């Protein structure tokens, strides 16, 4: 009996893992990446002639399949420019479940942030917070927000990815208003399971109490994401915003992602932020920064007038 070398074995493994797309409208075009429960392939939709991302489970597993289907359902209910749209869901010839979504080409936020100015990073952050606030309004928590799960497209599109840990917390028409509205769906993570990324996960999420996790857990993650975007020595109001968003007690955080976004927006407009109480001097400096032109003209006049007063009095 002849032996297979390592390369041949790897090719064999790869071909076994490759999805069987026969009988579907898709043709395999490459691998986009792989995650905890499946692999994302680049596929060609032969009917519409476009490239899509095709997510397939690596193994046939009823629980993982329920989660994959739930992820597709969650994405399908979140029609927003900042959230990847789902195109199709189904089962392959080899029995594995799959769904297809828009193929997002671009760069992950953690890779592109270094090239952006602080104002550009904050504007990207606002787009992320807007998408998350939209999901909350539809009763969905992301639960794994981090720069690696945000894609910046070639035309500046900002897309929040990887909703695999998302949780439905209330009726779609309602608001993500905490544990009271929680309901378990097939494929939901149960009480006691810890899911998320350390450093971006709220303490209540880390403790595994899935029932106590609400929209404020995503506010914590957004705060951590914002903190990761700030350069060393960032302005004090911005640091105060991240501190408030990342408060250990959910009650001390912003009640909603939209409130956090509002404060960041106010910072960009040189307006006062709720997280940062300011004294008279700081307030004067901020107002001068906001009305630079008027401040410069008045300052020029006052300097000139002061010199004239000095000159004429002597």
């Amino acid at each position, binding site marked *: 009996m002849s032996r297979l070398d390592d390369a041949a074995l790897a090719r064999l493994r790869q071909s076994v893992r490759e999805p069987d797309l026969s009988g579907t409208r898709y043709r395999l075009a490459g691998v986009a990446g792989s995650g905890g429960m499946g692999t994302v392939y680049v596929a060609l939709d032969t009917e519409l002639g476009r490239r899509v991302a095709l997510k397939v489970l690596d193994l046939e597993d009823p629980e993982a399949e329920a989660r994959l289907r739930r992820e597709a359902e969650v994405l399908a209910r979140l029609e927003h420019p900042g959230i990847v749209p789902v195109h199709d869901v189904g089962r392959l010839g080899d029995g594995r479940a799959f769904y297809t979504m828009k193929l997002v080409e671009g760069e992950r936020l953690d890779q592109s942030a270094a090239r952006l100015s602080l104002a550009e990073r904050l504007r990207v952050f606002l787009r992320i917070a807007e998408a998350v606030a939209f999901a909350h309004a539809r009763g969905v928590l992301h639960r794994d927000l981090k720069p690696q799960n945000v894609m910046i497209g070639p035309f500046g599109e900002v897309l929040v990815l990887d909703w695999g840990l998302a949780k439905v917390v209330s009726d779609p028409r309602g608001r993500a208003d905490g544990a009271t509205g929680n309901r378990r769906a097939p494929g939901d993570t149960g009480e006691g399971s810890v899911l998320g990324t350390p450093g971006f996960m709220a303490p209540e999420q880390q403790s595994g109490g899935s029932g106590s996790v609400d929209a404020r857990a995503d506010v914590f993650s957004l705060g951590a994401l914002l903190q990761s975007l700030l350069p060393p020595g960032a302005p004090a109001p911005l640091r105060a915003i991240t501190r408030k968003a990342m408060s250990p007690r959910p009650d001390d955080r912003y009640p909603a992602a939209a409130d956090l976004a509002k404060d960041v927006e106010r910072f960009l407009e040189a307006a006062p932020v709720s997280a940062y109480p300011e004294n008279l001097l700081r307030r004067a400096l901020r107002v001068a920064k906001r009305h630079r032109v*008027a401040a410069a003209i008045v300052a020029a006049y006052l300097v000139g007038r002061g010199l004239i*007063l000095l000159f004429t009095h002597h």
Partner: protein
Amino acid sequence: MSRITVALLVGGALGILDGLTAWFTPEVRSQLMGIVVGSTLKGLIAGALIGLFARKAARVVPTVIFGTAVGALLALGIALLQGSHYLEIILPGTLVGLLTGYATMRYGRPAAAAPATIR
């Protein structure tokens, strides 16, 4: 904002500020209100003239020179009416004209060109 609007706003605001600085001259402090009103009017007149000039000239240096001259002349007129404190009136008035001229060109939007007639 159009150049005339910017010139009026800056001229008026600096006129108020200019009048208020009369407080530092103790002998005229009692007439402060009248001085502020007069100074504001002077600033508005200077602003209107500078704005009209800026619309035609559309260049920074001539507008700044014109603003300085208008500010100085208007202040000279006031000083002549007053008959005293020439330097204390003319120098700040000149400064108001200079700053108004610069601000008008720096921050005022040029008037939009008339659309071409289609025949």
